[in-house]
């Protein structure tokens, strides 16, 4: 992973000192609430329902065991002993006191971490595929590119006061794990006309109140031109994005109002002015960033060693976990393990200080000291020897981390919701829990197969409900919490937005409604057909009929 040099360290130290001074001035009454607001937000600090909430950046989801241990320490020292992994590969703490935050940031800086630009109307943490660098279907590792974008976007003086927040995702794999098309800018690594690798750049995707799929601005961008192309898009947006209405301020609205053709024309005109300028990447810089993401010292090992195959035959629980949670690795003899943190009764994404420490230990022992956070709020050990999988699984089982529901319907994406978040209309965590309780049988879950359920507590859509195969949105009706369901969303390469099925439901109806939806799917599915494919084939009507049928 990337390591800071003296420049990175210096900038981070400067930032901590700056924020300490700003916090002091705020506490002294020299900075008003309104003036402190964007300053604290650009340091990840919200003032929430119960206490401040601090969002810490995990650049493109990568964490070392040293960083995990520091996060565990922070959970203990500054919080009530736990943190929350978000849908944008970051981690949040819900209980730090405002006056302690500068110290907390100084602690983080020791392990090359920070909360810079994790909130506010600026360029946020760049996200990517959690399997970057190890996926078997990868064109090129996206992480060096994320790091290049991270550095360019960090403290960018021109784009710190954009009309609204701005999120960038990069994807280098065939299966899009990064929800690339619903970002303000989505970047795909692709092969160009002469088979050279470059980028296709999309803009205008997003969720929230007005969900949209991104459209292509630049069909093919050569590697050295990446930053100037991004800068051109940002400049058009900074100048022309709407500032009169917060709900119409995202770039997706600008792209929609101008039309993609007109937007592209403006972006191209800006690009022409800066293309080839100093911001053009040098081979040396590209190589420098790539040098941090080389293979760890793998051993030469065969695929499917005896220790694995015999354990798979003898232990059905292990076999079930293996088939659901272990993916093929680019390197023979290794596997990619996803630890699913979606145990029934625990809020999706929540993790205790002990679990963080334990993860660090597992990472050191089994995966070269690194883990990755996924936008589905799970954790990946990316480089596990196949002959150690069984041993790892036994340890995970003992620690209740071996839930074998990855990508199954109880692997729910969920925002913190009304229990924690000041913006939420409705609770979301108890909804996730009620669905998990409705489907306790592993056998049944495996039979139902891949089904993404996404839950958001309000239309800000932090739980990405629009792109869930089943999306659930909390709405407020005259002070009561109701839930609106949509079907058919997807965040993959075939991205689509879900369609609302009909009138909203009360909280207690949700488990039985989900049950009926699943019943319709099982009734209509063809051999090997996942939920989304069946829905796309048969459409909304059969689901609607069953869900709203009067009880006999």
């Amino acid at each position, binding site marked *: 992973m990337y390591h800071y040099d003296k420049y990175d360290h210096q*900038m981070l130290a*400067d930032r901590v000192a*700056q924020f300490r001074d*700003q916090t002091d001035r705020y506490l002294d009454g020299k900075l008003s609430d309104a003036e402190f607001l964007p300053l604290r937000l650009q340091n990840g600090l919200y003032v929430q329902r119960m206490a401040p909430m601090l969002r810490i950046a995990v650049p493109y989801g990568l964490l070392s065991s040293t960083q995990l241990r520091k996060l565990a320490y922070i959970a203990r020292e500054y919080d009530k002993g736990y943190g929350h992994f978000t849908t944008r590969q970051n981690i949040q703490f819900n209980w730090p006191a405002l006056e302690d935050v500068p110290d907390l940031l100084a602690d983080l800086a020791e392990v090359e971490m920070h909360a810079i630009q994790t909130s506010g109307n600026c360029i946020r943490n760049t996200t990517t595929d959690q399997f970057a660098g190890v996926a078997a279907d990868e064109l090129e590792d996206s992480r060096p590119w994320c790091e290049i974008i991270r*550095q*360019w976007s960090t403290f960018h*003086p021109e784009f710190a*006061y954009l009309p609204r927040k701005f999120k960038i995702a990069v994807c280098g794999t065939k299966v899009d794990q990064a929800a690339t098309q619903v970002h303000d800018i989505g970047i795909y690594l692709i092969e160009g006309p002469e088979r050279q690798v470059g980028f296709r750049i999309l803009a205008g995707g997003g969720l929230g109140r007005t969900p949209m799929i991104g459209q292509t601005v630049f069909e093919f961008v050569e590697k050295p031109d990446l930053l100037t192309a991004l800068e051109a898009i940002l400049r058009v947006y*900074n100048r022309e994005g709407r500032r009169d209405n917060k709900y119409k301020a995202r770039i997706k609205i600008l792209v929609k109002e101008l039309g993609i053709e007109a937007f592209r024309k403006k972006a191209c005109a800006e690009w022409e002015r800066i293309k080839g300028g100093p911001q053009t990447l040098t081979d040396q810089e590209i190589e420098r960033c790539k040098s941090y993401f080389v293979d760890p010292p793998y051993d030469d090992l065969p695929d499917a060693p005896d220790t694995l195959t015999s354990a798979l035959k003898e232990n059905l629980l292990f076999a079930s976990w293996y088939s659901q949670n272990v993916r093929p690795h680019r390197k023979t003899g290794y596997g990619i393990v996803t630890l699913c943190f979606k145990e029934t009764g625990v809020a999706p994404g929540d993790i205790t200080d002990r679990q963080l420490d334990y993860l660090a230990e597992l990472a050191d022992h089994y995966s070269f000291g690194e883990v990755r956070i996924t936008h589905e709020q799970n954790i990946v050990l990316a480089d596990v020897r196949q002959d150690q999988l069984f041993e790892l699984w036994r340890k995970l089982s003992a620690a209740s981390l071996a839930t074998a529901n990855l990508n199954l319907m109880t692997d729910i994406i969920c925002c913190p919701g009304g229990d924690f978040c000041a913006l939420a209309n409705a609770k979301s965590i108890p909804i996730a829990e009620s669905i998990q309780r409705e489907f306790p049988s592993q056998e049944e879950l495996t039979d139902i197969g891949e089904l993404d359920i996404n839950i958001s507590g309000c239309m800000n859509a932090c739980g990405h409900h629009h792109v869930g195969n089943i999306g659930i949105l909390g709405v407020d009706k005259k002070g009561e919490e109701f839930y609106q369901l949509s079907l058919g969303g997807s965040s993959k390469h075939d991205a689509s937005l879900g369609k609302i099925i009909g009138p909203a439901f009360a909280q207690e109806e949700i488990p039985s409604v989900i049950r009926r939806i699943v019943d319709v799917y099982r009734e209509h599915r063809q051999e090997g057909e996942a939920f989304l494919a069946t829905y796309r084939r048969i459409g909304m009507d059969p689901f609607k009929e069953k869900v709203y049928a009067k009880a006999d």
Partner: protein
Amino acid sequence: MQRLIKNGELVNDPWTLLREATGPEILKIVPGKNFIVPLRFWKLYRSDMDDYAGAFGIWLDSQETVGDIGEEMHKFPVIALNFPVFSDGRAYTNARELREFYKYEGEVRAIGDVLRDQLFYMMRCGFDAFEIRHDQEPEACLKAFADFQTGYQASIDQPQPLFRRR
């Protein structure tokens, strides 16, 4: 009290900012001043300005763009860019455009809601004069230019991005 920072120092302001778009009669009432006038004033009363004894600068509001002045900008010794609120970031782009594309070499002044905590980024985008808001402590503001020792990106104060320097 001095409220203008130029090249890192507090200085007296030789300019008078004409905030409101008044008519050209102002030029008759106060002769021999140095005025910074709104863009619209210049567009409407150019001939009156030609006959005036004092000097002129122009100020742009945040929804106006540098392209609205065009190449004639070079004859103005100062161009001021307004921040109606500090969180409106359009003037940063205007400042960069002045310096980067038009190679404007006069004074680029920040006016309006100009606060201590935004000065550093303003400087990086090409502002070299700052008319700070009435309640800002001038001494504290002077420190803002040292908030960071360097930055990653190419900028007006450092045209080479860090990756070409490290």
